[in-house]
């Protein structure tokens, strides 16, 4: 029995589903780009990969990551989560937001160890990501 009330409910549900289909991906996109966070993740992952690609095993590298780490701290991302190295897949993973991260691969066949963020003492507060490049250990 096609009562009018049932028909309204059905159409409202369909409208809601359609709205969610557009709104959810949009919210994910907007939150990922909030304050340019996704841009900074992309930028740092590529620049760190550049440094690794030209590095020789045995080097220690320190890079200024002040701008990016400030984004991470603003979004309550812990220091240990902001930069990670996946030595199995040769990837640097940068995370400055709660709901995602950005990964980029480097072709230099080395392992990255002992990475940490340190606060350099100086005229202004500078955060540096330091890591050591070693021969592949597999």
């Amino acid at each position: 029995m096609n009562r009018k009330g049932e028909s309204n409910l059905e159409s409202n549900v369909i409208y809601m589903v359609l709205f969610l289909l557009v709104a959810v991906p949009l919210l994910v996109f907007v939150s990922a780009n909030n304050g340019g966070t996704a841009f900074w993740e992309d930028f740092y992952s590529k620049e760190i990969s550049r440094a690794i690609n030209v590095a020789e095993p045995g080097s220690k590298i320190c890079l200024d990551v002040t701008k990016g780490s400030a984004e991470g701290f603003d979004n309550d991302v812990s220091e240990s989560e902001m930069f990670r190295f996946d030595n199995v897949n040769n990837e640097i993973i940068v995370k400055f937001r709660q709901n995602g991260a950005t990964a980029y691969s480097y072709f230099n066949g080395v392992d990255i160890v002992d990475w940490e963020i340190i606060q350099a003492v100086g005229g202004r507060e500078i955060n540096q990501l330091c890591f050591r490049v070693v021969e592949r250990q597999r």
Partner: protein
Amino acid sequence: MMNRKGDSGDWVNFGGFFLICLVLGGGIALGIVIFFGEGYNFKQAESEILFDSVRDCFLERDFFDEAFNFSMCGIDEGVLRKDRLVLVSNLENGEEYSIGVRSYEVECDLNIEERPYCSSEEVVKGGERFLIITGSGADSRRILR
């Protein structure tokens, strides 16, 4: 009784509603892309760094030897196979060695936004001329962790 006249009113605004959602959503997304840019294009820089590494390796090793692999030069072959190209052509006899996305050789010359970038140069080794082409179409990957 099927298809009463009143029922059709529920669906009158269906198209308009969906269109408004898409226009608003698209507008917001476009605004963000315009404001923050489309990301950091690193392909040209990476193809040049890769070229330097490959040229150094080529001058030390024989790429045309079956036993050759890039780990001998400290380069990860797994990464090269995905979104990168290394192509070495012997210009004297036409012999070729390649690893990665072979189509980049052509795609690098296309005038499209998302194209890969290549670096190339002639190198002389053992009295023979070789053309080395390296390319990168790599981009960062969004992950959920």
